[in-house]
């Protein structure tokens, strides 16, 4: 475990240094799979699957079957709303002022008219969710994606995304603004929201983790494609033309 932390911190500082050197133009969207520490990642993956099987899956199934759906939605809305101030900060750091205003307004609307964030009235009013994180900020600043990394308990990541997670934890404005019960409620809600997600997407997660031949490779592929799609702002990623591939060379 200590070895993992040491390797991680070394690699994460390399990402931050690269960002500082690269200056301020967005890094190119990654292609292919760069996984130099695959053996170590596979060990972490086995651990994550074991934890899911023993704890997370059963707990999220009970959470999903005991707690009624509207309550689960409320808990998940509450947790996401508390993430918004941190996202506004990231939007500002990315110089995406329009998104900063959008997310600040979402926070305002949901906190007031949405009863402290229990209802996502902003989305219903057409202010859609535009999530971001410090990993994206690093991307905007020009830090390269880095190698693929599976984190204990968190799951698939890259070096850049992992570095971003650490910064997001440290920089969350709520850490400085609120204290006591509200902060614990926020932490509790975000843990419950994770169980709620695991329950809602259980068919998908189960099919990747338990029904695929190589769940590590499937999770890696899914994560990288989806993460790159988000960072590219939803641009259509390139794909092979199977007709050329199948018929072209015969």
């Amino acid at each position: 475990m200590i070895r993992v932390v040491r390797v991680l911190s070394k690699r994460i500082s390399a990402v931050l240094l690269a960002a500082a050197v690269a200056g301020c133009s967005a890094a190119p969207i990654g292609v292919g799979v760069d996984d130099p520490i695959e053996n170590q990642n596979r060990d972490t993956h086995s651990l994550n699957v074991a934890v899911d099987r023993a704890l997370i899956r059963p707990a999220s199934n009970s959470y999903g079957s005991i707690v009624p759906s509207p309550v689960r939605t409320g808990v998940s809305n509450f947790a996401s709303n508390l993430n918004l101030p941190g996202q506004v900060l990231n939007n500002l750091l990315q110089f995406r002022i329009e998104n900063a205003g959008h997310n600040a307004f979402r926070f305002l609307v949901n906190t007031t008219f949405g009863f402290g964030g229990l209802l996502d009235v902003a989305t219903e009013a057409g202010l859609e969710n535009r999530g971001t994180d410090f990993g994206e900020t690093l991307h905007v600043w020009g830090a390269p994606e880095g190698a693929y990394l599976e984190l204990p308990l968190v799951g698939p990541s890259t070096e850049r995304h992992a570095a971003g997670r650490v910064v997001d934890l440290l920089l969350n404005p709520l850490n400085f603004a609120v204290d006591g019960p509200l902060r614990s409620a926020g932490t509790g809600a975000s843990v419950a929201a994770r169980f709620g997600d695991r329950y809602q997407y259980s068919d998908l997660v189960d099919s990747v983790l338990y029904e695929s031949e190589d769940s590590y490779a499937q999770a890696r592929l899914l994560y990288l494609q989806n993460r790159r799609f988000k960072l590219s702002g939803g641009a259509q990623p390139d794909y092979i033309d199977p007709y050329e591939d199948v018929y072209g060379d015969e």
Partner: protein
Amino acid sequence: MVMNKPFSRRAFVASLAALTLPLPAFALSGPAAEGLVESAVDDINKIIASGKSESSMLRDFQRVFERYADVNIIALTTLGPARRSASNAEIAAYVSAFKAYFTRKYGKRFNEFVGGKIIVEGSRNSKSNVEVLSTARLRGSAPFKVTWLVSDKSGKPKIFNIVIEGVNTLTSERAEIGAMLDKRRGDIGALTADLKKLG
């Protein structure tokens, strides 16, 4: 046509454009591809609304799948380079086993689709196919982007891939089949036999 006037400026520009941007002639139009996706989604919704047993819904789903998807190209693509060393009989057996496996695998997840809606938003030409862009609104989850890749290279307009929030179904399935083949030391016969039990 343009060749009748050799060295005209237009012909020169056109030939330059043809060199740098090879634009294939599109037999398949955007609206036709959008219509295909819309009617596939309609048929799937009808199956879900029918309230039949899961096994008969799966049979119906297999029919929809064969009608709208280019099953052959999907199966051959997932087999990857291994198909070059395989015999025709092996490939035919694989394609038929894959078809049933694929339907079972995705058919059984169709309860995620209950109460959901797919809104087709437009299309554009790309490579030799049409990309149909849509947004899926499923119950209890944030809307997400789904791109349907449609081609008529099989002779009829058919869907050959679905990209969901950047995740390419064909690429994922190809990685999955590749991992299965590796584990069976490239034995397509063993893969085909095991596919019949999976999904």
